[in-house]
């Protein structure tokens, strides 16, 4: 388990990659496993990445970032939003009207901003391999069809992150925090009227059984998204020889980032397909209806800009840059 002495051929560098989802989640089988295999291949077999799913190396998901910073594990895949306040700059990509509908473009944009240093202060103590988002929060409703923001007034909506809570508030609904596993029973019993989550969560939680409507804005438009990272312990990274670093970098470049966007889009498509097959109504709002949501959500961006000001961050500059880069990559 420790690096073999110099001269040993096979697997000189072993890494433990720790994450929170189960081994059958697409994030594990379609993203992390292929990425790890690519790194191993690039290194000519000198790197071995052992993946530990479902927090099998201990702790709770919010601890993943501490674990990689402290070297308890070498690599992690985690949800930025599980530790609110730790990644204020990257949060820009989670905002509605900044992230709209294209995970591929957003992935390329956020990694470009990471490389340029605009997000660097969020990631002290870790070396980011790549950042990504999921396909975006859609409105998954128990029994109320939502076509206008007014339809959401007074409803209880489950929230996963703080920016998502702001989205819910901006639409006149009440954000309710609860762990993901509590969501299906809460939906079934009407404790919450809906959740703003990606379609990709439908299969693992069987959301199709507890909801009637899957609603998204025009052109696969969503109400913001969630940021994720794959990161390595800084000291471990700094101690690697250049050719091994290159093996990691080559496996994580723009081509891969674009691929990650497609993987999450495909998982999302699979989820909504399952819901439709189960008899749920998949509603895509008209451009006019969608514009009403965009207008209602615009204050969320302003609220965020105002909030990060207290941390000495120029939020508006980040918003402008993120939008410009997303637009650039979407056009590719």
């Amino acid at each position: 388990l420790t690096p073999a002495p110099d001269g040993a051929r096979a697997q000189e560098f072993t890494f433990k990659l720790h994450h929170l989802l189960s081994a059958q989640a697409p994030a594990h089988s379609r993203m992390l496993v292929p990425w790890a295999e690519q790194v191993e291949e690039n290194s000519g077999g000198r790197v071995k990445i052992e993946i530990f799913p479902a927090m099998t190396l201990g702790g709770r998901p919010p601890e993943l970032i501490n674990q990689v910073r402290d070297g308890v594990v070498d690599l992690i895949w985690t949800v930025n939003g599980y530790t609110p306040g730790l990644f204020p700059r990257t949060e820009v990509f989670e905002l509605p009207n900044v992230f709209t509908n294209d995970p591929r473009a957003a992935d390329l944009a956020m990694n470009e901003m990471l490389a340029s240093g605009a997000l660097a202060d969020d990631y002290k103590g870790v070396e980011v391999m790549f950042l990504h988002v999921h396909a975006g929060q859609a409105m998954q409703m128990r029994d109320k069809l939502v076509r206008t923001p007014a339809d959401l007034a007074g409803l209880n909506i489950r929230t996963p992150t703080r920016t998502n809570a702001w989205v819910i508030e901006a639409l006149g609904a009440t954000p309710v925090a609860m762990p993901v596993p509590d969501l299906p029973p809460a939906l079934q019993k009407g404790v919450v009227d809906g959740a703003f989550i990606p379609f990709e969560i439908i299969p693992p939680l069987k959301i199709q059984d507890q909801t009637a409507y899957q609603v998204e804005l025009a052109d696969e438009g969503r109400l913001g998204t969630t940021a994720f990272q794959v990161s390595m312990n800084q000291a471990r990274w700094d101690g690697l020889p250049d050719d091994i670093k290159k093996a990691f970098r080559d496996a994580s470049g723009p081509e891969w980032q674009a691929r990650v966007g497609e993987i999450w889009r495909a998982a999302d498509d699979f989820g909504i397909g399952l819901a439709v097959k189960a008899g749920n109504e998949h509603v895509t709002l008209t451009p006019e209806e969608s514009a009403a949501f965009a207008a209602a959500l615009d204050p969320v961006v302003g609220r965020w800009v105002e909030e990060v000001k207290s941390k000495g961050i120029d939020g508006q500059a980040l918003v402008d840059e993120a939008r410009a880069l997303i637009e650039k990559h979407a056009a590719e």
Partner: protein
Amino acid sequence: MTSETGAETPPRRAGWTGAAARAIELWALAGGALLLGVVAINAASVIGGVFGAPVPGDFELTEMGVAVAAFAFLPWCQLTGANVTADIFTARASRAWTARFALAAAVVALFFALLLLWRMWAGMLDQREYDYMTAILSVPVWWAFPPILVSLALLAVAALVSLVEAAPVAAGRAPGAGSGPA
């Protein structure tokens, strides 16, 4: 007859062990009061939920409150011998040997308490430095740590009390005196 976990008649303690025992008992009760507070928040949230106004952040307050309370219970567990042991293999051991086992357990508890105190102090500094907050109420997570560090210090004290009380019996002196952790 039956006796209840954590509520046996405590050995007579005087001097510093008596004071320590009293402090540990009060600290455990403070943890219990905190647990009652968490109960109140959740009950209020249920009642509020019926009227469409659940308590915001009840989820994260529950996590934090129960964690702090659970740490406050640990010294009391040590002091009253509430931590489960299997006496099946040593049911016929002499009183001196039983005390020796208790002594070893107290040493492990003392070492663990001090180690965790040191490590969670470092953990608290991390939480402060990186600005960890809860999701809804933005409560700094490190606020939970000072009472936990007090709990761990008291756990060390409780382990020391067990150690001091088991030592004479383990050494074969003071037959019948003391009552180490079961």
